[in-house]
């Protein structure tokens, strides 16, 4: 739904789908077998059949949809607000009280979706009926609307009054109980669907002839727009074809493999997800203690263990973390292959940097990395090298893409795995901090408590033994925890 589509009747479309869903719920509620138990309700001296209490409605919703009470209250509130259920005792209070208050289903004849849009003529008839029946007992807002309508559709007012009288006469011939029911239903309908005052005011400003003129103008414009719109639609269909044909030829991966990867990913990152597992020493938003952010900032001398562990998940994780990238650079320098990372960084700079400096940067890259005898010559295969050198004659933003990709995968397949096995990385991992969990004030909730427990192997064992019950905070860790600093 957008601001544009609202104008084109999109709001109607959006509301309709919501109405359909609510109607599904209502129909389920009225199912003879699985639906609600109805009772007779006494209203003053009359007995209203097929009514239900607020409490019963809530209970049924909780039972049928397996939801909590708060949600059942919320859902039933929506059903009342949109007119599918109406209260018998206080008709103007459109809320659902979870007690003995009686409610009734609105008849489909009076559903908002059935009678869309609410006709102002019908509303005028309704108000006229009310006026005749209870002389001068219209509510304030009804009086305003009544007079507005009277001005607007003055020409058909006789018809309105006549209709009102007819309907009143016909209703007198019904049984009292039926009459009361119908009055309740009608009242409930108009409480929700009465046309807003501003709309009435707006309409009354426009003269009938002006409206006619605009209608003609609109139709002509519509005719031309449809004609003109055919062409862009044609282009869209062409694009669809290209996409379809491409898609048919695509290599797909089996679902089992793809879905397995999601499970693995979520498992791997679970300990790193503060919302799932909590964070050490504490979640700053909950405890108001910003230690977590301070410990994980860019320029901290000793990183946290989780952070260093994350570098081993994927090459991208290592490069995305500035500290990880620096460490990797140090390692590469020892291996005399630092030019690879420098080259990659320079290419990134071109791809995401200012347009005006592209040419200058490309020249610099050529000079430093690609020219024969360059100070930091990178080892690219000859085919890619030729292609890149050819492209440098007309440099653009993506000219280095192939070469960059080649070097990236070189580092990923070769240097990166060796880095993870290196002493440099292992030492970093060993001296990394595992923060102690700060003592929380007692929260009455069930959540996996963070353990100050660094070893991945132990984390796996922990995950299998636990099934969601609370553990004591700050549980004593193993000997590796003893070496942690706060």
């Amino acid at each position, binding site marked *: 739904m*957008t601001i544009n589509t609202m104008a084109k009747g999109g709001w109607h479309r959006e509301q309709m789908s919501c109405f359909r869903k609510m109607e599904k719920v209502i129909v389920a509620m009225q199912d003879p077998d699985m639906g609600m138990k109805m009772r007779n309700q006494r209203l003053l001296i009359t007995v209203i059949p097929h009514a239900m209490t607020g409490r019963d409605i809530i209970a049924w919703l909780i039972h049928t949809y397996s939801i909590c009470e708060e949600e059942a209250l919320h859902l039933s509130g929506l059903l009342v607000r949109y007119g599918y259920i109406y209260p018998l005792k206080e008709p103007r209070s459109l809320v659902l009280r979870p007690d003995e208050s009686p409610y009734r289903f609105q008849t489909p004849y009076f559903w908002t979706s059935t009678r869309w849009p609410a006709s102002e003529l019908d509303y005028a008839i309704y108000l006229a009926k009310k006026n005749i029946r209870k002389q001068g007992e219209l509510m304030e807002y009804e009086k305003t609307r009544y007079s507005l309508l009277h001005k607007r559709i003055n020409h058909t007012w006789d018809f309105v009054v006549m209709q009102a009288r007819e309907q009143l006469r016909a209703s007198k011939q019904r049984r009292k109980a039926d009459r009361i029911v119908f009055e309740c239903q009608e009242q409930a309908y108009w409480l929700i669907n009465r046309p807003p005052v501003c709309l009435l005011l707006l309409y009354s400003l426009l003269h009938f002839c002006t409206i006619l003129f605009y209608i003609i103008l609109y139709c002509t414009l519509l005719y031309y727009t449809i004609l003109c719109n055919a062409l862009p639609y044609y282009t869209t269909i062409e694009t*669809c074809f290209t996409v379809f044909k*491409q898609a048919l030829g695509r290599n797909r991966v089996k*679902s089992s493999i793809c*879905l397995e990867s999601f499970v693995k*990913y*979520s498992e791997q990152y679970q300990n790193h997800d503060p*919302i*799932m597992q909590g*964070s050490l020493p504490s979640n700053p938003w909950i405890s108001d203690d910003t230690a977590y952010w301070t410990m994980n900032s860019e320029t901290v001398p000793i990183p946290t263990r989780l952070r260093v562990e994350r570098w081993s998940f994927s090459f991208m994780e290592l490069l995305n973390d500035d500290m990880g990238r620096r460490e990797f650079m140090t390692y590469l320098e020892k291996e005399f292959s630092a030019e690879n990372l420098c080259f990659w960084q320079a290419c990134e700079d071109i791809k995401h940097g200012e347009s005006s400096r592209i040419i200058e940067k490309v020249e610099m890259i050529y000079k430093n990395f690609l020219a024969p005898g360059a100070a930091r010559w990178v080892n690219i295969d000859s085919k890619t090298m030729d292609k890149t050198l050819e492209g440098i004659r007309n440099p653009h933003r993506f000219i280095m893409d192939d070469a960059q990709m080649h070097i990236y995968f070189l580092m990923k397949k070769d240097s990166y795995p060796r880095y993870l096995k290196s002493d440099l990385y292992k030492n970093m991992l060993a001296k990394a901090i595992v923060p102690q969990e700060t003592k929380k004030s007692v929260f009455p909730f069930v959540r996996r408590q963070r353990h100050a427990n660094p070893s991945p192997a132990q984390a796996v064992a922990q995950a299998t033994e636990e099934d969601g019950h609370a553990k004591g905070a700050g549980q004593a860790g193993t000997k590796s925890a003893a070496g942690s600093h706060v």
Partner: protein
Amino acid sequence: MATQEVQLNETLTHLKTESETLKSKLEDERAKLHDVELHQVAEKVEGLGQFVMKTRRTLKGHGNKVLCMDWCKDKRRIVSSSQVTHFIAAHHAVTMPCTWVMACAYAPSGCAVACGGLDNKCSVYPLSLDKNENLAAKKKSVAMHTNYLSACSFTNSDMQILTSSGDGTCALWDVESGQLLQSFHGHAADVLCLDLAPSETGNTFVSGGCDKKANVWDMRSGQCIQSFETHESDINSVRYYPSGDAFASGSDDATCRLYDLRADREVAIYSKESIIFGVSSVDFSLSGRLLFGGYNDYTINVWDVLKGTRVSILFGHENRVSTLRVSPDGTAFCTGSWDHTLRIWA
């Protein structure tokens, strides 16, 4: 004129039928490799315990409906925009000469903010620490569309912005020169949302629109690489799964769906009969295990991505939730609503 019109109509009908045939052929191809459902694979995964998340902060600075928000990379600051003229970043409130600022984004460096809306433009405002500085004066107009701006996002740097618009296109712009670098055509109606892929090669993004389609695009060539059309109504929000292999979408049909890019199909639907109103925005938790959805019935539903079940429902807002984003380090998520407030949940 009339015969031309008739001819055009005939060609259109013919094309439409051919398009339908291709589409069903594609569905068959996709189904061939679908050997298991996500919840089946997830059976062995441990279930989630009860979740308790509460509002930790309520931000009341806007006097109007909050339409959009974004986190800064420093994980603490946010920028948000509203129905009437403002965006607020940290301590700045800037008045923009248009109503309905529907999109806003923080630059990766944290030094600038981009926003736009009914003015059909996307403008970049540099931020400074000086509270009194008149930011509106330093504004730089970057993007120009022929209809309202629905979403914008910086790519990996401050220098490029990706925008989507009600005119049915997305576009990539150079901030410095305001030049259009690439445009993306293929949606048949308004494009409502977009998200950049967190992939190694960093060259794709996904967009969702009122034509019920979610399209994946190559930023370099401007081509639509993949397309998914299973929603029953407008797609209001798309977000990539953290690994970049899938993305989730939220729609007016009250469902969220997960699409796998390698299997090239929809793999999960997150819906419940008791959820009636549409989703306005979705986001994943850091590990991708949880999917948060902000709904038009003022609630937030939390879904277990793997098992497909609803973990929790959060109440608090007093009007529809219009935007939802998880913080960059995953410690909390922020929601903006038409009740004029922003809430941070943890």
